[in-house]
């Protein structure tokens, strides 16, 4: 290209700062530290009304009548609505439409919404609730999930024929989904007795995982504003705007385009905002009164306002050769879905397919049940079915190691999956999975100093019990434990899990500037930062604006399943590539390169178009002038399959992620108190997009796993939550959360954008069993229940009543 020699280069070196792999500051960071970032509970309009919800006091009852007249007479009350006022569909749901907007006929859990009120003051609204009279005939609760799954005589939570049937989920009675998996001899019809004969050593175990709460700090809230076109605008903290819209609009009897959602600030999510809470209620009241209506739940109501992690009971049997080679495994898991389906079918799909964990086992039999009960509804929480199973199979691996007299890490390495292995659904792990290496790295990390070598071993801050001064260090035993978890990333089982991005490149104030618009929910994971990094890397422009997320652009899918860096990241990347192609076309059009010059030799960097051969060709500002280039793209991951309903075979997952934890604990064996001294992790993330935010994800997930290991359980008795407050439901404090060493590996997944793997969930799986294993190591107790309770450590029966 002789002609280019006459052009003066604008600058030969071009770099773009704050692209992928760097750790730029969060674009919403300054507003978050000053408190000016507007969360959904901070929304305000001068003429707005306050909504409130009347909830069922019974876990299971027939509704004989509702009288709202007393509430309506209260001055300041604008509306009192019941199921009779639902303008459209009376029920909604994430997967099955089985949940009433407002209860009719029956209530199926304590806390189920029965009526809603709009008033001029929150206190007026609360008083109005007290004046609503509901006549109930109390029914026997269905609170035993095992019975709901297995006893054909168990009373039904939903009347026969009242629900849409999904044959592929083997529905019967109270079963929302039953998923069997059979491999090896089990697939040929062999019995457990026959397969057991192949093993030298057999261990069995029964395990329980309690009901965990997401406990986001910003309770459910939102503001619905009636619009002149008869529609409604909803400002809401959610994880997936479009799935909310898809559920809300039919219940309001409105077309989807008249229900417009804008993401308000989200004070944490962790799965609890995947289902609707007050969305339809606020919209109903706004449309009914013609005024904006705001709902804010308080902490107690929040415990009733969202789904929780499914409690699980599990029965495992593992058989191995004397040298530790696994021969067979059986698993039965019952997941208590509570009153409504929510995400239970998908949770069963995950818990079953990953039920044996990341181990090579030739003969496997799994029976996984998700059931209706009259307990609080359960659905998505970080880790999603894989958390429960991981506690079970990792407990079994430790039990087997003890039985064999083997080192628990060596046993895991001996049976570890790797790239090319098949999980029990027959799906090949067709991406790097260096599990053995990860375990070795975890084992080789430096250990914290022994208590005896501490400068002040009786410093209460170093003791279980802390400054409560429970002891001076006597009776403290240290333990070490390991956990490995395998997690599916992105949605599974045939779901077309796409995301959409609109990217615009233009010149603003003489500088190239990029605008990125998606509907993806920023819930604290830092997606807004990552979207900007991708745009900078792909378009070589530092000035990037992330538009607020709303339904004016196509769906981004959910901020769940560790999927947004992959899916919305993929969508932003693809849209940027489309913009870049048009930039290069413009370069050719202007004659800056010869026709036929391959795009591969061109790049965008530092706001300039650069040729690999000739350096800088032109600045984007000069090239574009007043022209804007905008492209919208959808990004789809490769298709996945349903599990077949009889043997559970099928490539149901998009991607796999793995984390290994090593926990070190000090246990006061007399008082049953535990202090986690270290919680170190090894995780393969494929590609580090933002080192600082990645560390935050791993630390945060590990802390939530710590909570499940040692303190977090919603106490449900006969369908009643006994501890709906942060006094009685404990989450880890800064004192409970130890220093964490993190070792991140980057083996790229060839199927994913940049080779990345979703990173937010895998540590939630492995930290729980690692900590419980460490407590077992210290105490010698079996510890089959997560969370471990003081009485389990001390070995006394729990208090009755």
């Amino acid at each position, binding site marked *: 290209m002789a002609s280019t020699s006459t052009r003066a280069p604008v600058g030969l070196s071009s770099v773009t700062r704050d692209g992928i792999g760097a750790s730029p500051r969060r674009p919403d960071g300054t507003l978050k*530290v000053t408190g000016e970032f507007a969360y959904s509970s901070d929304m*305000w309009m001068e003429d707005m009304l306050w909504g409130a919800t009347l909830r069922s006091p019974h876990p299971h009852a027939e509704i004989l009548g509702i009288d709202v007249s007393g509430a309506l007479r209260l001055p300041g009350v604008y509306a009192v609505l019941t199921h009779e006022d639902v303008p459209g569909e009376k029920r909604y749901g994430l997967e099955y439409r089985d949940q009433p907007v407002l209860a009719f006929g029956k209530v199926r859990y304590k806390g189920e919404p029965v009526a809603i009120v709009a008033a001029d003051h929150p206190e007026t609204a609360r008083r109005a609730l007290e004046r609503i009279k509901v006549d109930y005939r109390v029914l026997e609760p269905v609170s035993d999930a095992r019975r709901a799954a297995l006893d054909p005589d168990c009373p039904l939570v939903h009347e026969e024929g009242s629900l849409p049937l999904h044959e592929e989920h083997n529905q019967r009675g109270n079963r929302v989904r039953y998923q069997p998996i059979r491999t090896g001899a089990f697939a040929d019809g062999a019995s457990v007795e026959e397969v057991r004969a192949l093993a030298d050593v057999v261990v069995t175990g029964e395990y329980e995982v309690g009901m965990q709460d997401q406990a986001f700090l910003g309770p459910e809230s939102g503001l619905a504003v009636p619009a002149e076109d008869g529609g409604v605008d909803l400002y809401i903290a959610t994880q997936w705007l479009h799935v909310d819209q898809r559920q809300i609009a039919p219940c309001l009897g409105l077309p989807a385009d008249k229900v417009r959602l804008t993401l308000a600030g989200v004070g944490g*999510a962790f799965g609890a905002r995947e289902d609707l809470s007050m969305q339809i209620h606020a919209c109903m009241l706004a449309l009914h009164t013609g005024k904006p209506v705001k709902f804010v739940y308080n902490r107690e109501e929040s415990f009733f306002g969202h789904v929780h992690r499914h409690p699980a009971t599990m029965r495992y049997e593992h058989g191995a050769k004397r040298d530790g080679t696994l021969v067979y495994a059986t698993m039965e898991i019952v997941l208590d879905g509570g009153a409504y389906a929510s995400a239970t079918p998908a949770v069963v799909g995950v818990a079953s397919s990953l039920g044996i964990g990341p181990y090579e086992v030739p003969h496997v039999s799994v029976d996984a049940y998700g059931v209706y009960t009259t307990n609080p509804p359960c659905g998505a929480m970080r880790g999603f079915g894989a958390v429960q199973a991981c506690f079970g199979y990792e407990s079994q691996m430790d039990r087997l190691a003890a039985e064999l007299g083997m080192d628990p890490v060596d046993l895991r390495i001996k049976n570890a999956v790797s790239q090319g292995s098949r999980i029990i659904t027959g799906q090949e792990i067709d991406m790097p999975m260096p599990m053995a290496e990860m375990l070795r790295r975890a084992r080789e990390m430096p250990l914290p100093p022994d208590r005896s070598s501490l400068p002040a071993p009786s410093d209460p*801050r170093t003791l279980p019990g802390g400054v409560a001064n429970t002891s001076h260090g006597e009776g403290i035993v240290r333990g070490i434990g390991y956990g490995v978890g395998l997690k599916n990333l992105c949605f599974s089982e045939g779901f077309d899990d796409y995301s959409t991005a609109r990217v615009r490149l233009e010149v603003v104030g003489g500088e190239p500037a990029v605008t990125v618009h998606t509907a993806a929910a920023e*819930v604290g994971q830092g997606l807004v930062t990552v979207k900007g990094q991708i745009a900078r890397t792909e378009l070589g422009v530092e000035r990037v604006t992330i538009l607020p997320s709303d339904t004016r652009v196509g769906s981004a899918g959910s901020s769940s399943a560790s999927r947004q860096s992959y899916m919305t990241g993929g969508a932003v990347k693809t849209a940027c590539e489309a913009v870049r192609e048009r930039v290069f076309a413009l370069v050719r059009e202007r004659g800056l390169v010869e026709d036929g010059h391959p795009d591969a030799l061109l790049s965008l960097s530092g706001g300039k178009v650069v040729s690999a051969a000739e350096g800088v060709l032109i600045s984007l500002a000069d090239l574009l002038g007043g022209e804007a280039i905008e492209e919208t793209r959808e990004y789809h991951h490769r298709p996945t399959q349903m599990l077949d309903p009889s043997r559970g075979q099928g490539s149901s997952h998009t991607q796999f992620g793995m984390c290994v934890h090593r926990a070190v604990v000090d246990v006061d064996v007399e008082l049953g108190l535990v202090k986690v001294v270290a919680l170190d992790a090894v995780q393969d993330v494929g590609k580090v997009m933002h080192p600082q935010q990645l560390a*935050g994800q791993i630390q945060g997930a590990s802390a939530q796993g710590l909570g499940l290991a040692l303190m977090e359980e919603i106490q449900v008795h006969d369908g009643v939550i006994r501890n709906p407050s942060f006094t009685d439901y404990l989450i*880890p404090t800064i004192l409970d959360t130890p220093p964490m060493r993190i070792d991140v590996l980057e083996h790229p997944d060839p199927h994913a954008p940049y080779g990345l793997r979703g990173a937010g969930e895998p540590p939630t799986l492995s930290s729980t069993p690692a900590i419980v294993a460490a407590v077992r190591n210290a105490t010698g107790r079996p510890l089959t229940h997560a969370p471990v309770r003081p009485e389990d450590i001390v070995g006394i029966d729990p208090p009755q009543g």
Partner: protein
Amino acid sequence: MESDIILRVNGREWPLRVDTRTTLLDALRERLGVTSPKKGCDHGQCGACTVLLDGRRINGCLVLAVACDGSEVVTAEGLGTDGELHPVQQAFVDHDGFQCGYCTPGQVCSAVGMLEEVAAGWPSAAGRPVADTPVLDDAEIRERMSGNLCRCGAYANIVTAVRAAKEVSR
């Protein structure tokens, strides 16, 4: 019963008639539109509503507005000066001491109040002899910040941010 009070919030004076049962938090958020203190639990369990009342950190949900008559209230949005973030806020940004950010205004107010407590020689509950000058190592930062919950689990970075802010403020 209602009372007339004056609240001085972030340097501005607000005459206010409040129901005597109104908490400081509700008065700030719902009467004055100062929404930087967040409501996480309403019971003093989470610390998201931490503000500085006459320089001391308190939970806004546990104090009645009427008891704050004439007092100086500083919230997260009032910590900075001349458009600059307070060093503690800057440290939280630099060290990624948050994720969703809901607890953050409370965390930064708590950290500002805590650093002043340490500077004034106040002992913590850590059982050290009262005569000792407090040494703000990581364990002591954790001890003194333990009233502020962070569900995202950004604690490791909060410790780093507070440590960094302490260095700056020296």
